[in-house]
């Protein structure tokens, strides 16, 4: 049996809710002041999900990065690995807001989409003296 205390984020009160569970079965939930707390804690305990917002490298754009987000929340435990995967992606400008940058991120079935436009620009490459 596991007992865990989770802070509910549904409203500013931030009830500290304690959940007792054995494998997939809830034994008790205590500490919430409203039903929203119960819903939140169930999700957060069994399958915590997060929307990931980050940036992706752009080639040939007016900006070096395009801001992106996962269309839906993905399992919290995948966040850092997802970041490492996303770091390898390069997308060519122009980028349109809502454009799918990567399908099925980390096998979750969730797409990574652009959250802004990035115009294409023909710029001269600077050669840097090291």
């Amino acid at each position, binding site marked *: 049996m596991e007992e865990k205390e989770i802070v509910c984020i549904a409203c500013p009160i931030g009830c500290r809710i304690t959940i007792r569970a054995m494998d997939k079965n809830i034994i008790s939930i205590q500490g919430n002041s409203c039903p929203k707390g119960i819903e939140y804690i169930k999700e957060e305990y069994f399958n915590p999900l997060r929307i990931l*917002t980050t940036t992706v490298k752009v080639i040939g754009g007016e900006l070096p990065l395009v*801001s992106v*987000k996962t269309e839906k929340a993905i399992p919290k435990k995948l966040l850092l690995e997802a*970041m490492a995967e996303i770091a390898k992606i390069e997308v060519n400008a122009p980028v349109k807001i809502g454009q799918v940058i990567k399908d099925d991120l980390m096998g979750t079935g969730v797409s990574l989409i652009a959250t802004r436009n990035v115009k294409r620009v023909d710029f001269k490459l600077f050669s840097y003296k090291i």
Partner: protein
Amino acid sequence: MKLEYDLVIIGGGPAGLAVALEARRNTVKDILLLERDKYLGGILPQCIHNGFGVQYFKEELTGPEYAERFIAKLNDNQIDVKTETMVIKITPDKRIIAINRDDGLLHIQAKAVVLAMGCRERTREAITIPGNRPAGIFTAGTAQRYINIEGYIPGREVVVLGSGDIGMIMARRMTLEGARVKAVLEIMPFSTGLIRNKVQCLDDFNIPLKFNHTITRIEGRKRVERVTVAQVDKNLQAIPGTEEEISCDTILLSVGLIPENELTREVGIELDPVTRGAIVNENRETEIEGIFACGNVLHVHDLADFATEEGEIVGRAVGEYLKRSRKFRPQPIKIVTGDNIAYVVPQHIDFIVSGRKKIKIFMRVKKPAEKIRINLLDVKGRVLGSYKKRIVTPGEMVSVYLPEVLLEDRLINITVSTEEETKE
């Protein structure tokens, strides 16, 4: 170059954008929006995280997506926009001097002016953290700009001072991009940020949040090498003997926002010492008729949605102002702060508006409190209106509706104060 406009808006962030679009909807004809950065949106384009639009669009959006909803409409609405343009001066008769590389110096005569310049971040110097002056000290917003727009990570081992939303969000952002955030320090016994951010930015990544702590010294010759942190007492003074050193190469400061009112002061408009923004009436109009202020330059908002809402109040008000269709009260009603209220906006009610049922008053409390009532009192202390609030914190803007029926002619003063709910 000389120009004439009905309305000139200074600042193209959420407030300024909302003013432009709402003014257009209220038949204001020639509108010019001036923005000093290359892109519109104010701070929103670098706020790549979620949480915008929940109030206004009933959707959860990222900063850039929220901004785009407004920017996309500008073209259709024939609103003139000049970016990379800086306003140097405004005169009381609404002449604006601005400068950019293409036009050079612009002299613009406006019929109405809206101040929407936003705010700046409080600096290390302003809060006087003693020590050396090495590289590696950034305000959270500047670090955010580097990471999300310029494309560079400014640090590897980070200590964040300030647990406001910006500090917590940047703690997560840096962690996700591979940096190591060692601690977030908060001088108060509570966070001014949302609980959601504490959970999803700090708890998710095991980043310790230390209340009642601050940085007492910064060390490092060329680059930050370590900070000394200490616990503070009730008076926010460091308690001797509680000092600890944390080695790091980067300090992110999230210690407050200051409305950017240099132009406002120079044109002679009086500022509220608490909000550090202009003193305004319910139309967000300053003491100079036809000069309005909204968004973070007026008071620091917690949600961009409210900045948009305030921009729309101004957009409508500009329409009324230009049509000369306003009726002034014989005397303005001053709205004054009482117990545990840090500030209220607007600070006075000036107009008689037929058909108006209520006025939304915004405020922030000084200290968090639970189960309280917000009371509106007249000069004699009689309760004009009373509103129950389950929980109030300084980090969230609180609002109440002031019913029009209460605004009798004789009323010249309303005090807003809090009161603990008596047990029933």
